[in-house]
């Protein structure tokens, strides 16, 4: 069983046939570091499964200080979701920050399948619930954990993060200033 199949089954148990019908919609692609999966101001059509590598979702800014909203590590389904479901222009760039192995699928075909197959419909519903919970937990972390703890969680999730993002990007992702980030890291180094 491959990674995508395990991921799908971890969310909802599909019959063999439904699982095959769903995974058949996904196409394997290899991307290089800095490749863009979804361009800002375009209408997205695809959803992605990250088999290997790292991707960032960011809102580009003219002031040279982009807001990195999400960083995806392997074994996750992701997309420029709001724009995808509303069929509007993406406000995010989805960019590979390492070489990546990705399985991509046309979202409209995914939805069409779900509207004919109730197992797939239940899968999508559960996947959105999971997305929602991850989202809420992230927001809770923001409200309840201090910046140091959020930084530590980030480094734990993606150990090489410092080589993938600039200090400005890491700071904006944690919603702190660059100065606060420096201070925080100095303190952590002093204690280690």
């Amino acid at each position, binding site marked *: 069983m491959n990674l995508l199949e395990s991921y799908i089954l971890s969310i909802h148990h599909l019959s063999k046939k439904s699982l095959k019908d769903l995974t058949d919609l996904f196409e394997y692609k290899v991307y290089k570091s800095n490749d863009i999966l979804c361009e800002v101001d375009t209408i997205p059509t695809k959803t992605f499964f990250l088999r290997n590598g790292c991707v960032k979702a960011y809102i580009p800014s003219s002031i040279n200080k982009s*807001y990195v909203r999400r960083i995806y590590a392997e074994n996750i389904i992701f997309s420029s*979701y*709001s724009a995808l*479901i*509303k069929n509007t222009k993406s*406000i995010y760039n989805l960019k590979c920050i390492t070489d990546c192995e990705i399985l991509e699928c046309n979202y409209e075909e995914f939805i069409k399948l*779900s*509207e004919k197959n*109730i197992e797939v*419909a*239940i899968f*999508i*519903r559960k996947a*959105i*619930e999971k*997305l*929602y*919970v991850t*989202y*809420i*937990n992230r*927001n*809770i972390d923001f*409200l*309840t954990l201090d910046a140091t703890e959020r930084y530590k969680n980030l480094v734990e999730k993606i150990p090489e993060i410092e080589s993938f993002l600039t200090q400005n990007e890491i700071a904006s992702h944690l*919603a702190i200033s660059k100065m606060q980030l420096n201070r925080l890291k100095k303190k952590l180094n002093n204690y280690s």
Partner: protein
Amino acid sequence: MELMRNKMNKIHPLSDETWNEFSSLLKHKQYPSKHKLCKLGQRATDSYFLIDGFIRVYLISENGVETNKHIYPSGSFVASFTSLILQNKSIVEIECLTECKIVEFNYADFIKLSNSRMDLCIMQRKNLEKFYVGLEKRELESVFLNSTERYLALIKRIPKIETKISQKNIALHLGITTVQLSRLKRNLRT
């Protein structure tokens, strides 16, 4: 009931058969102002549709500081959603800000029904999509908009909000003090 069925049909049309089965799960309730539909630490089991009134969903930190996450007007679906999905203790409280007319239904029963009814399953998916889009919009507003802009967005979304709920709750929702809110409004008037 009309309001609820119309709202749901707008999201995705439901057959008469589905609606009848779903209706059998519904309980009509009326609650006074300050009634809590869900308390912190409680395991949520119900989802709610607000027919009339205003409801707030908020977090309480360890030292008792409240943070309003969202204020819902009539015609909204409300729930301690994470608690319903994960079946764990609720991290939010849900409180009636005014007297409220509500339709309640057991979420597990609802899911069981939607797992066997395609139109209901599609409606729930689309409802979740709407929910998520709204969340993201608010997150980005809190990052990119200042408190004046967020205040203007709030009264645009719910025009009559000032007549219905206290300044304290509006300030909480914007993440500012009531003094800051007064000042903000005074600046808007000039």
